[in-house]
């Protein structure tokens, strides 16, 4: 090498390299976590800054994760009106127990998720309850993109590139919780819906075009991993997914809980959840 690539950066000495490194903090970026969480601004009505546990903006091709405590509420906001979030959830006390998309739709006799819908585990318990939803575009059937599909559609699909497969991002998020690829399920897609025709055909619902949000209440301590990227049925040429804000706060469960007994199936799911909290019955 006859050229010095660091010429002019002023990092030739240890002292200068140290100063250079430290000068970088605080650079403005579009996506990052709010630290500390209690410094978050523009909070939902009635949410005190001191109750915020997690606040983060994730962009296209990004992922994030946290552990929610029972009763916490997490709001996911589609800031641009054109995004897709794949959500994975586990019981934090027993991570072999996880979101089961098939049970979620089958037990509730409903393919489309909305307010009052429960996100069910594979052990007959509630992980999350949808307590608010201004989007109405969610999907429990189609799962997330894989690298092979992204390579075919975008020409690239690896995590280091511009069009990462959502599955690979989820695996990176899950790894932070000592969970691996076999711990992933199809998950749920937020902000991009799909309808099923009478002949079984799948029809993507167009993006809303306006900001919207969905709020989920944790019914157990829950490991949550989300990744942002196009829906598997998004056939646009570009890798399109707008930024998503995630804000979670400590909340008090209303008494009586308006979501507990909206159907006999849901009521029994809450009863099973309470049995687990009492005795770890499984």
């Amino acid at each position, binding site marked *: 090498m006859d050229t010095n690539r660091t010429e002019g950066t002023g990092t030739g000495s240890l002292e200068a390299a140290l100063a250079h490194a430290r000068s970088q903090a605080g650079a403005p970026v579009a996506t990052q976590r709010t630290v500390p969480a209690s410094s978050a601004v523009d909070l939902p009505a009635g949410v005190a800054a001191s109750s915020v546990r997690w606040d983060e903006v994730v962009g296209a091709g990004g992922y994030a994760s946290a552990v929610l405590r029972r009763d916490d509420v997490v709001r996911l906001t589609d800031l641009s009106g054109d995004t897709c979030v794949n959500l994975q959830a586990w019981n934090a006390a027993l991570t*072999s127990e996880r979101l089961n998309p098939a049970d979620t739709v089958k037990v509730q006799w409903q393919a489309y998720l909305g307010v009052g819908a429960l996100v069910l585990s594979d052990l*007959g318990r509630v992980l999350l309850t949808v307590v608010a939803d201004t989007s109405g575009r969610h999907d429990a059937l189609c799962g997330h993109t894989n690298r092979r*599909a992204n390579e075919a559609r975008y020409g690239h699909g690896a995590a280091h590139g511009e069009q990462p497969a959502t599955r690979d991002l989820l695996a990176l998020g899950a790894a932070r919780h000592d969970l691996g690829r*076999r711990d992933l399920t*199809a998950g749920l897609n937020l902000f991009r819906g799909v*309808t099923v025709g009478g002949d079984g055909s799948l029809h993507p619902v167009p993006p809303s075009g306006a900001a919207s949000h969905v709020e989920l209440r944790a019914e157990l301590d829950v490991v949550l991993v989300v990744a942002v990227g196009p829906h598997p049925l998004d056939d646009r040429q570009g890798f399109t997914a707008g930024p998503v804000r995630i804000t979670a706060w400590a909340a008090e469960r209303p008494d009586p809980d308006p979501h507990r007994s909206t159907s006999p199936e849901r009521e029994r799911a809450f009863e099973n959840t309470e049995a687990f909290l009492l005795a770890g019955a499984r």
Partner: protein
Amino acid sequence: MTAAAVGPPPLAGPVRSDEVVEARAAWSATVRAGETLRIVDLGGNQAVDCLIYDAHDPTERYSAADTIAAQGNIHLVVGSVLRSNEGGALMTVTDTALAHHDTIGGACSRESNTLRYGHHTLHQHACVDNFLDAGSRHGLGKRDLVSNINWFMNVPVGPDGLLGIVDGISAPGLHVDLRAEVDVLVLISNCPQVNNPCNGFDPTPVRLTIVGPEAS
């Protein structure tokens, strides 16, 4: 009953195994690339829950979501490619006597039965226990169970999203043929459910035959 007694068309190629699996039972086998697994619904309207793994790397396994997203339809029909969570082809539906099969209804479990039918069903045998039993013989555990296929099961979705298991469209002697595209491990639960019509409220045996590729 007599109309279907004609049975499925004969399979070409050498028979490697041919078993009748009892009602309510678990079954598993490796099917090698090029071989065909035929499932015959002997009694009619018998749901056959099925999971598929790459025999050499079981972290790559059947994905209902990747399968239906890739074909743009929730129905498994002749020509449906059963895809893995990495988008790869595991098996292909090469023939079936049914209009379609299900892959969105999942498997019954002790726990989901309590939600769907009441706490009194907790101790009833269920497909998840069959999958756990069969999987455990191949080093697979609970974390390896994912949304499955339900051969011979009928799960319509209404215009408002109402979704559920209704009377089946199968009959005695109807079949589905699956060609392995790679070496696969197949787990089967001959569904023991008695609380909904997926087995006509009467679980019955099924026949599972593995046939090698036709000699060229």
